[in-house]
């Protein structure tokens, strides 16, 4: 394995400790000693219960939060304190798709404008002239399975699955190397989820993307990822290849997570066995 694309070392994050005029709100430790490295081209999964610190980790990776300790290196460089230009370059290489497809789209902008915004910011770096924006937006839409007729619509005119496709298209517009996916399908119906997961797999294959994939659904992780880390209350309790972790979990916590997933095979029901 060559130099990792994303390297997280001893990362810790403490929220709060906000000082008011009278009294302080207590600090909350969301992350402790996270060590993760993600290689170029792989799909790295992160699973954990709600509130275990998954989103906090992504915010640190994106440089939206300043880590309380440790650091995040993207392609060998830190992700904070980059200055205006450095930040823009980083943004081009690293993108995110959020959990809630509706909330991540500006309700007042057309799909064209939403996606083209990425080009407005990064057009020069991408070598796309202003006149080429619409062409490029169309290409992106087609890549995620939408068409010309959707170009000038507003987000509320789409279904959840379509919105998530738009989010993906926007993230892809800057031709990033790393794509962070923070529970991209947990707000969607299973049937739609399947479409999105398939789309993501196709795109990875075509574009050679690196995924940092967050979910609390172990099935999804298993389906999409090569390696996985299990996070519990801000600590990585286990990490390794998907098959290994899922088949021979070494931690009780991981086992508990696995056991709790209801399997659609009625024969495997513990309740029925009990009865």
């Amino acid at each position, binding site marked *: 394995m060559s130099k990792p694309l994303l390297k997280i070392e001893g990362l810790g994050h403490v929220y709060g400790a906000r000082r008011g005029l009278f009294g302080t709100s207590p600090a909350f430790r969301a992350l402790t000693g996270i060590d993760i490295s993600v290689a170029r081209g792989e799909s790295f999964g992160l699973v954990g219960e709600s509130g275990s610190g998954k989103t906090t980790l992504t915010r640190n990776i*994106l440089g*939206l939060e300043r880590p309380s300790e440790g650091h995040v290196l993207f392609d060998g460089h830190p992700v904070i304190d980059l200055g205006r230009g450095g930040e823009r370059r980083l943004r081009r290489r690293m993108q995110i798709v959020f959990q809630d497809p509706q909330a991540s789209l*500006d309700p007042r902008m057309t799909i064209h404008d939403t996606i083209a915004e990425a080009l407005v910011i990064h057009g020069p770096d991408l070598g796309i002239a202003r006149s080429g924006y619409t062409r490029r937006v169309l290409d992106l839409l087609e890549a995620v399975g939408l068409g010309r007729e959707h170009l000038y619509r507003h987000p*509320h005119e789409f279904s959840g699955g379509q919105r998530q496709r738009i989010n993906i298209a926007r993230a892809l517009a800057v031709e990033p190397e790393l794509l962070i996916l923070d529970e991209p399908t947990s707000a969607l119906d299973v049937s739609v989820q399947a479409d999105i997961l398939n789309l993501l797999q196709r795109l990875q294959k075509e574009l050679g993307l690196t995924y940092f994939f967050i979910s609390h659904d172990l099935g999804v992780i298993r389906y999409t990822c090569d390696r996985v880390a299990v996070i519990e209350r801000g600590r990585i309790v286990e990490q390794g290849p998907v098959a290994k972790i899922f088949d021979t979990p070494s931690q009780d916590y991981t086992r508990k997570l696995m056991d709790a997933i209801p399997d659609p095979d009625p024969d495997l029901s513990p309740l029925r066995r009990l009865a």
Partner: protein
Amino acid sequence: MSQIDTSLPRAGLARSARAEARARAIYRFRQSLLSVIGLAIAVILITVALLAPWLLPYPDDVTGAVNPAVAFQPPSAAHWFGTNSVGQDIMTLVIYGSRISLLSGVTVILLALIIGGALGVIAGWVGGWIDEVIMRITDLLLTIPSLILAMAVAAALGTGIWNMIIAITITWWPTYARLVRAEVAAKKQEQFVIASRVLGVGPMRLIGRHVLPNIVTPVVVKASLDVGFAILLVASLGFVGIGVKPPTPEWGTMLAEARNYMPQYWWTAIFPGTAIFLAVLAFNLLGDGLRDVLDPRTRR
């Protein structure tokens, strides 16, 4: 709840959803008869104010012409609303007064919006101690009843429509600073703003393209309601004797003067009083209707 049947995207998209949203909005607005009435009154009022110079039965009265010989005439064919203590036609004064009220009402709100909005955006976006300072000042100003503050400032500045507008603006901007700050601070955390930030969009563009357009609704609703209340405050100042300069006709001042002639010369009070009432009511109804249209969540 406006919810589009997501299971049937093809059918939902057959008709442009935008047109549909507009249809829904108009439907909601029309559903409330009161909003329509409000709109109608407001439109009439604005038309009257704009066309005032051509509508005045006795245009000279506006610039202070007096005619003691016909003082205190009750409503008649010649003077629909009667005449006042110096023989001026009350209808003329009331019509012309609509200009003053609307002009000052709208100007006050615009100025308050600009000042309060700018400070609110700064406070909400930048946060930190700047936010603290701006918000503490607005908190302080908001503890003083606006009427008293406006009276004090207007009295010190002296009479005149612009002084009055300045005085009222001073009392009004904090409410907008608060509203805008809260909205900006909330929108700043919204996922779509963060998504744009992650794309590398700079703060100016974030504010201008993403935050501001999305806070327009509550601001517009408040502003349209507030125009009514600003008109009321203008009239209140006029009523206590701090307002425009004579001979400029102003409803509150007219009412204050008329007070001395109640109940004999009731028409001197009833018409300006009703004019204030209708103007405020119109903007209240309008604001209410707009809220229904623009912000369906809070509907009823």
